[in-house]
């Protein structure tokens, strides 16, 4: 059952990335290029996602202690804003700015079987494991 939900949510997520064109590095570059031919479209992706998830969270998820399948709801990490978080986020932003591809869209692009994107996802996955191991 969990796998079916995983597959369903993955499909909806991938469809959303495609309709919103988060999967298109050119759209990402032009969103990040405020001083060029700025295309603010991707701000609307964030708005759409945050509106649906945020409202859903405060109305339906926050009051619950358990998910429908009985598992605990994920906690909001209480930790301070530490160096690890900021260094990680900074490096992530540089990589995203260089390629216009973040993890979700990278995977969503795999269907094209383009060698560049296969390389991207393979290297990114190695990077994720390294980054995770570097955590203290």
């Amino acid at each position, binding site marked *: 059952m969990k796998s079916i939900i*995983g597959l369903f949510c993955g*499909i909806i997520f991938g469809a959303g990335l495609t309709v919103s064109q988060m999967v298109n590095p050119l759209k990402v570059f032009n969103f990040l290029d405020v001083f060029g031919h700025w295309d603010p479209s991707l701000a609307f992706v964030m708005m759409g*996602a945050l509106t649906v998830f945020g409202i859903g969270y405060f109305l339906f998820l926050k009051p619950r202690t358990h998910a429908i399948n009985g598992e605990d709801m994920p906690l909001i990490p209480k930790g301070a804003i530490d160096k690890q978080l900021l260094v*990680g986020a900074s490096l992530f*932003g540089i*990589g995203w700015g260089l390629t216009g591809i973040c993890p979700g869209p990278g995977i969503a692009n795999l269907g094209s079987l383009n060698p560049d*994107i296969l*390389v991207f996802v393979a290297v990114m996955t*190695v990077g994720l494991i*390294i980054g995770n191991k570097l955590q203290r």
Partner: protein
Amino acid sequence: MTEFTPVSALLGGALIGLSAFILMLTIGRIAGCSGIVINIFRIKNQSKSHLFWRISFVVGLVVGPLIIGSFTQFSIPTTYDFPRFIMIVGALLVGIGAGLGNGCTSGHGICGMGRLSIRSVAATITFMTTAFITVFIVRHLLEL
């Protein structure tokens, strides 16, 4: 140049938010793409059912765009016109950064910010800032 597409951007964003909402409501999990990938490789500490939903989410992420592409005008790109080494360096930074910083655009940007997590707000502001600066340097200072 790309066209300004606020309607499809909002609609696509809404689908992403809906996916994250359903995943948390039904199985109590965060739809963070980098976290899902990392956890697939932590085989030791998870039950089979956890491993399987993560793998099937990734499969859905690949299949979803192909389904949408089969009956709408929206599709994934087929070529990337920047050098292979940029792709490799960038991918490594994306991976190490998201691994170290505990999340990416989906985990921090949507699931974290949507729950008003202070850490996620800080992370999102940080990676947006370095991404803006990187594109500024590449496009306007180096003029690549």
